[in-house]
């Protein structure tokens, strides 16, 4: 089956991101395809490239990136939710006249259309919210 996840909870504030990651790892372990993870609302903070949690705590950013590397999972970040929270890639940073960027591949800024597509094109869409 093709799965997609929607993550709306802020990492390290709510359990949603950890629940989603644990579910994602089980999905691929059971032989399914995890096609996309869509980060929305405060869930976009999962994509902050400068995240540096203590070494004895789960590193959500690295774990999502590992899923992309090993299972080709698309990591899609809602652009409207991200920009208003200061998360932007090099292109958006330049467009807004900012120094530096806070988001980079494998996380990709995208629109809500991708979420609608995830809800219709894939077999399952599971939401994890705060």
């Amino acid at each position, binding site marked *: *089956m093709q*799965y997609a996840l929607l993550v709306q909870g802020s990492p390290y504030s709510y*359990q*949603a991101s950890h*629940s989603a990651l*644990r*579910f994602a*790892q*089980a*999905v691929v*372990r*059971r032989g*399914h395809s995890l096609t996309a993870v869509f980060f929305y609302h405060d869930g976009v903070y999962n994509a902050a490239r400068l995240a540096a949690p203590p070494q004895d705590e789960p590193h959500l950013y690295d774990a999502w990136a590992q899923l992309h590397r090993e299972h080709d999972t698309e990591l899609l970040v809602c652009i409207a939710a991200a920009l208003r929270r200061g998360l932007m890639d090099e292109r958006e940073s330049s467009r807004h006249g900012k120094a530096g960027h806070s988001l980079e591949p494998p996380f990709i800024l995208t629109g809500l259309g991708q979420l609608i597509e995830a809800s219709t094109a894939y077999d*399952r*869409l*599971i*939401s*994890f*919210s*705060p």
Partner: protein
Amino acid sequence: MVLHILNRSPSMSRVFQQALDAMGTDDRLLLIEDGVQGALPQLIPYLEPVLGRLFVLKEDLVSRALEGHCDARAIVVDVDGFVSLTEEADKTVSWF
């Protein structure tokens, strides 16, 4: 069959009532995160209408030291069981 996923304890939020109201006769309810408290003997009466199709996530019970304290009528599943429930369901609804 729809799998309803609830992450709030009945002792903290009334959203469980909305989930129950929305559930069809074959639908299932899975308790995750703080929602696992709903499987405790003190709180399970709130979820009585769905007994027999009430599931609770083991990992979230363990992280709260609640494993072994659930009402026996709640069906404990691990995260692989969670995925399995989503395989069997036509779709899922998350309540929060």
